[in-house]
């Protein structure tokens, strides 16, 4: 823990953290886009992709001190994606991916809100 704190307190880390905090919205959009790209354009179910994006997002949220509200807004978008996917394609891969992302982000949001 001390080492991690030391790394986080270093000059370069502080620069990165400041950059992340100053560009929260843009980065949020980028990560949201990554999630939707995985849902709509990537046909395979890859845990590497899912957990890669998820852990990046978690890191981003923790470092940028993003509120849980933003996570839940993303969850609403995912729910709508799932709705349209279900309406048009039924329980297709796309719909299922949206549902899985919803569950993962909902879980993260709940834990985040509990901490808050």
């Amino acid at each position, binding site marked *: 823990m001390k080492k991690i704190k030391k790394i986080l307190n270093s000059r370069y880390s502080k620069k990165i953290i400041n950059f992340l905090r100053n560009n929260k919205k843009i980065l949020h959009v980028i990560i949201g886009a990554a999630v939707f790209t995985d849902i709509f354009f990537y046909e395979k179910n890859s845990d590497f992709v*899912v957990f890669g994006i998820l852990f990046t997002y978690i890191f981003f949220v923790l470092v940028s001190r993003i509120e849980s509200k933003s996570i839940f807004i993303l969850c609403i978008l995912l729910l709508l994606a799932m709705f349209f996917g279900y309406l048009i394609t039924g329980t297709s891969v796309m719909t299922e991916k949206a549902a899985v992302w919803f*569950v993962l982000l909902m879980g993260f949001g709940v834990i985040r*809100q509990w901490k808050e």
Partner: protein
Amino acid sequence: MERMKISRNTLLPVFISIILFIIPFFWLKPGELDLGGDSSRLYFYDPVGYIFSSTLYGVAASGIGTENIYYLGIPFMLLLIALKYLLVSPTVLSSAFHGLNLSFAFFFVYLVIRELINEKRNNKTEAIISVSAIIGALFYAFSPALIDGWTYVLITRSQIFLNPLIFYLLLRYFKTSNFKYILVVLVVTFIFSPNFSIVAAPALFAFYPLSLLFLVIYAKLVLKKGIVIKELFLGVVLFFGLHAFHLIPQINNLISQGSIANATIFSESGKFERGLSYFSAIAPNIKASTNLLGFPQMVEVSNITSFFVLFPLVVVLAFILVRKKTLLLTCFFFLIVLFFATANVTNLGVLFYKSLFNIPGFVMFRNFYGQWQFVYIFFFCILFGQALYIVLKKKGKKARVILVAVLTFILVFNAFPFIKGDILRATLWQSNNVKSIIEMDTNYEKVLRFIRQLPSDGKILTLPLSDPAYQVIAGENGGAYMGPSTIAYLAGKKDFSGIEEFGPFREILLKSFEKKDYQTIQNIFSLLSIKYIFHNSDPRIYEKAFPAFPYIFVYGILPNNQELYKDFIEKLNYKKIYNDKHFSIYEVNDRAYLPHIYSPASVIPINLEIENWGYSLKEKDFVDGRPAIEINQSSNVYIKPIEKDVFRSVAKDFPISVYYPFARWKPGSFFYPFIVKRENYQLKSFENSRDAYIDRLLFLASKRISELERWRNDLSAFKPSEEFFTFDDPEIWEINRWGEYNSWNSSIARYYAKMTTAIETVDNSNQNEIWKDLQRIKISQNLRSHQIKTNIIINNSEAQNKSVIYDAFDFIFERLNERVAPLEYDPTRLEYLIPKVTEDTLYNFYVRNIQGEVTEVEINGRELNVFDPSSEDDWVRYENVELGEHEDRLDIQNNYRDLITDQKWRKVNSANILSEFEELEGEFITDTKQLGAVKHIPGLEPTINYLISFEYKTYGTDFEMSFYSKDTVTKNPQVKAKYTADFRETKNSRDWTSFAAVVQTRGTEDALFNINPADNTTDLQKIGVRNFSVYRLPSHPDVYLIQEPEEIKTETPPKIAFQRINPTKYKVRISEAYSPFTLILKEAFNSRWKLVDPSQDAESGQKPFYRTLGSLSSLFFGNLNIKRELPEEGTLEYFEGDIVENRSQNIFLNEKTFETWGKKEIAEDRHFTINGYANGWKLTPDDLNGQNEYRLILELDTQRQFYMALMISLFTLMLCSIFLGWSLLKHR
């Protein structure tokens, strides 16, 4: 419970509950019932009959009498008995329970949501809380996922309201710390004990651990209240005390080695064969999106489903609007349960779920999506209710009204078919539009009354027999009941209603049914104690009404219509004793019946399994000898030759699939030598199993073909040489030779090496000839497939010297085919292997020659003469045979003919393969306008094997060869029978090649053999066909060799008089027992059946305790007389009065119930299996102190254990009632 203020907000949910309670009363018309399914629900129809037939005793109500611990339903049945006494009508009773489930489910979810919305209340918030809770509760009651389960409601379905009820009571306990809530919970669990038994284990372990954890965390973190561990512990102790009456016998059964329950939970095979493999098969079909919408899995739904997205949307909105601990906690548990109900949350999630199957008992969740559904929907609804409150509170009045209206509309609109009762009126599966709602036939009710009064304990055969032990009864309203036997579960008589209930006699009975061997069938029935036959000849329960399930299998073997069943019964030795409309009851001739308890005069030792007892059961006077059959594996008294039926074994898998694995690495590439090393290393690991080793060799040979196919244009040219088919694999360090893999030469040679090794492995194996023949057929099939494929590969390759490569492959295939030595099959000749014996012994030799099919019998090439040519018996005795320490070969010649000697080939020129216009013979030419040729094969019988053989030459072109038949057996009226291909193969050869296939037809109409070009674009195609024949493969006739002289032990049986007290207790009076004898009870062997002498006290230390307990029990309960009212007078006599059967009773509890407690059990070490399944005891005069006249009790020890456990439960119930009464008084 806090008194709820009576207000508008309280009245509305009460009013809705009342409406929900009333709704089910409109589902059924007077007299109608929704019975049937695995749980049967017959307890609503006749709870008294049900409890006395199945619930009170630890033995199965039907079949051969295996142990079946089902005491768990007793309190619930007693409640039903009381309610039926008040309500009278079973329809009203059933509707009341539906109403109870629905209204309580709604009401208690409403209360739970109200409790969890822990906020200061004023008029405005009170109204919003109430509305939110109502919508949340309606979501639960009308949840699409839960509505789906209302068809064929199981006995554990009450969890739909029990879960929220108990959750609410526990929540109140944690809030108020008032122990009376725990007591109420305990009483509720006692009444609805089926939901808290091992039967309901999945539902129990899915809901309660997580709910309790939720409540504890809620109390600690949200309410900030302490938990009184002592009270919880007391609650657990009282719970186990209350449920002791079913838990103790069940747990005892669970931990007993060898029991089915023990094997399922604890064995490796139980874990994987029944749990993990099932889970792995269904998991990919379970969708997270379907669960998020609250819909049932794997069910077709309408588009309105998608609007259910509003519900999770409301949940997420609530999190955006406000932060609440209760909401977070509920959502956290909701997500956990969502994972358990879905599994498909990332691949890692699935892997994690699979790892949970290593936990003993987790296998109960193999059907996870159904078993977690209730708890998932419950948490979803209480989460939704809380979320809705938050959202409504933040919105204006107009928005609230719209949102509530939309949600209510979605719920009610989707549930409308359910509200109307359409869900209940399902069509019985695979029936011809027969509904599952039945109005019981009053004539059938008379039949049940008659059966109940039958004096004997003999069992009943229920016809028509079904596959899974289901009985079908047509109702007066056109519907039908399909479920467990009513004779077993209502009339209290054990019956056999399905093939599966015959236990170890299943195979020999099926064989006897098939061969119409009525004498053997009769003798088996006598061994199984089948004294009566009940025949329901109603056409509405068989044939057209039920063309498939539950008779799919039996249609092919037993009479396939009701008239034939009447003929079937006539041929057995039964006389009619009852007839009313469609219902007839027959009783066996006393001379053909072995009583339920008897002592044999002769014991036939047999060293064969039951399915080979045909010879021993053939005699007409079998029962006269009062026989018993004892299995003695160590003797060689009987020898049953092994049928060499290679083609029938192969037929099941025909055509043998040849799998071509994907070739990932190119020969000659950098990694390829390592791949070869890995292949060789893996191959070595298969050496211990011959079958697996040969399969692996064939797999690797096929892989060489796959490599050829993929890289055929990259291989270096073929170099002809003398030894082109040999190749030494380069070592890893011989880098300069790695490139040699990339050539036609090495591919051919390496393929040849693998196939040669496979053939040599078979030839050099010490397995028997049957195994070797099977392996050779497999290799031969692979060779054929490889040959075809290599022809295609070479043809399509860009190799310049194709003809040379063709020749090389032809050479090695020829050599390999020669070495495989393909089987020469003569369908008129049946082969057997006679196993060796330890020393030279003379045997009598018998062959069953039905309809004179057998013409010649030879052993090791020497023809045997008939012993008595004038005998007309089916069983023909031949001259004696001497067997020794070597295997012998037996050949039997049969009369059979080629079915198609008169049939010509006909050209086919349209898509309809039945059209024909010109006859052809021998070699013929087809052109692009035609679809080939077809030959009719007439005179086929269903479920019989036929051998099709011919020779063909396709001149290098691909031709398809297909066999078509029509399914006329299952008679599914929804599907018009049409020709479908049983197999289709592509053949290609440049020389005459032989073809042989074993097929089994599904119908009686002509089958067709079709040959057509695989590719219609080639201008000219030519095929030659010759020696086409179709032979019926005869069944191997039964053959027995019996040691001479035939050993049969004789005994002097005493006189016996017996009476059934209940299914777990018999009184037996023995007289004139002057010598040792065997006593047989014809119930499935169970070491817990005890023979007790009530006149002698037990000797061991524990027994005084049981004696005292027995005496006390008699004192307290002896005045009770709980029994089914049955006539008491009447006796039946067998074997000229040597065996007397007094009228059967059904006494659960009276002053004599405890007479065996603390009494001496005799002949415990001489209790063994006899007649293949029954209980036998060897008794000597010393066992009874030299007496020759005495009284014994036969009792199942499980029942004694149950009585003790019942006392614990009753005592605990009394304690709980006292606590509760005192608590209520204290409160006032």
